[in-house]
């Protein structure tokens, strides 16, 4: 391994040009970390595939749609998990979920190594719904145990499949999140809300509405994500580095502070009917201009109004 780059040094020049949204999970990991520093655990050569997909005549993938391992970020040893959103929508099945559970349990036992989770998921893999649901529960438990042990767990969200369902709940357990404009975070997906409640409640084909309800800009303004990143791998790397050294621990005080933070959100925005109303209530003079702002202008605006509430997540 030649993972000796100076702290803060960009991993590789190409990562400035590579879109996070367009990159595969393997490319995200390769370009996010210091060059040649990644070591995968249970890689595709071991062919630990889902034992359930064949029941639905669906193709398997040798890594079950997630890569876990360790590497270095500006010299700091980190554990990393990356979901492949193009395989089964990055969904959590039995093997996929167990890899992340094992990684987080290791982080808990090591106590000092930060974890980066590169989310790209629609949630539970419905073809193996029961084991996928339970995998989410086990991941949440292991993640909180790791945080109580002092581990920083950073989520990075900006992929095709967003961060939905159980993925959104795991993201809500992280120490901090980085999100790009393309990143979406929610529990119920747009189509599921529409199926259950009707198109009047939620029109999943109204992409502008979907994006401003669940997308990265809204999550950053609301306080659901600590950091907003441009779409390049380089920018995600910088954001992850910044957060890794600034996030706090986890205890009863943090939970009480989060309770106050979320109660305050309900008081301020609970009657809003649309993201535009939330942004106006947050003091943004021209809420309708938000979706069209260049990233730099949005970041400056968000940094001006959105409180980060350290120690309240």
């Amino acid at each position, binding site marked *: 391994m030649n993972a000796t780059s100076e702290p803060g040094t960009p991993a590789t020049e190409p990562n400035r040009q590579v879109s996070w949204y367009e990159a595969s999970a393997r490319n995200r990991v390769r370009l996010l970390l210091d060059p040649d520093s990644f070591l995968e655990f249970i890689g595709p050569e071991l062919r630990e595939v889902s034992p359930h997909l064949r029941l639905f005549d669906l193709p398997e993938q040798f890594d079950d749609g997630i890569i876990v391992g360790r590497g270095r970020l500006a010299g700091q040893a980190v554990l990393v998990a990356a979901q492949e959103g193009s395989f089964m929508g990055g969904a959590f099945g*039995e093997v996929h979920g167990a890899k992340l559970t094992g990684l987080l349990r290791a982080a808990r036992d090591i106590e000092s190594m930060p974890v980066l989770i590169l989310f790209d998921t629609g949630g539970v893999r419905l073809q193996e719904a029961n084991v*996928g649901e339970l995998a989410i*529960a086990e991941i949440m438990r292991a993640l909180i145990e790791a945080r109580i042990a002092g581990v920083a767990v950073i989520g990075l969200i900006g992929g095709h499949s967003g961060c939905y369902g159980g993925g959104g709940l795991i993201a809500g357990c992280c120490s901090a999140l980085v999100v790009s404009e393309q990143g979406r975070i929610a529990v119920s997906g747009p189509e*599921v*809300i529409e*199926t259950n409640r009707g198109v009047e409640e939620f029109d999943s084909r109204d992409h502008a509405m979907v994006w401003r309800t669940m997308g990265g800009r809204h999550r950053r303004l609301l306080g659901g994500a600590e950091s907003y990143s441009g779409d390049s791998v380089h920018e995600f790397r910088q954001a992850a580095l910044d957060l890794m050294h600034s996030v706090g621990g986890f205890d009863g005080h943090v939970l009480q502070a989060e309770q106050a933070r979320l109660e305050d959100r309900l008081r301020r925005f609970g009657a809003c009917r649309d993201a535009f109303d939330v942004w106006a209530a947050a003091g943004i003079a021209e809420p309708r201009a938000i979706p069209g702002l260049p990233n730099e202008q949005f970041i400056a605006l968000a940094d001006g109004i959105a409180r980060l509430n350290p120690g309240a997540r």
Partner: protein
Amino acid sequence: MTLNDILVSMFPDGHAVKNDHGVLTGSGKLRSGGSALVVGVTDRTAVGVDEAIRLAGFLLPSIATGSGPVIVLVDSDSQRMSKRDELLGLNEFVAHLAKSLIYADLQGRPTIALLYGHSAAGAFLGTALATRVLVALPGATPAVMDLPSMSKVTKLPLEVLEEKAKSTPVFAPSLSNLARTGAVYATWDDTTSLSEQLNALLQALPVAADRRDVLGEQRGGRLKAADIAERVRELALQAR
């Protein structure tokens, strides 16, 4: 069993549990002495931002001020599916509730969920599945997602899913299928005293470490999870 039947059978020496629009908060007297904190969702109520914040708001201040177990009674819908809830960041609220329950358990307030009706998806994850021990009553109907929504998401016809549900335990919603995965620790007998069954559980409470994957392996309903998780953990420890 109705909620009232359950409370009477579980706490014959008395309880102070109130039901406010489907959100349960309060306490009950234990047979063994002492009391249990009670939270829960009833009447098949959906778990939205308002429900989650009220449950966590009751639980959090109580963790450090008392002792004894936390009982989580569950007969819920899924997470509330609405524009408002997602707009306000439902994922953070449900995660906050789950975190509060996990934290309570690790702070010496062992959490025991009793699933006596329905629960699904995010509501299930934020309540019953965020406890140390999940027990169920016969007839409980846990699910991950309703079949019409599954059909929409998977693009598989509803008839195909209905057929698969009969033959594929890993996919089909049911208490017995979920028990085989290790998610449900035990199914209680609803014809005998719940307080005695609770007392027996408290006398032989599983340790706080999450052993659901091992249980699923032993029961034959989840053969790979425990092995994969443990191998990854060991590899990560070796690579340190």
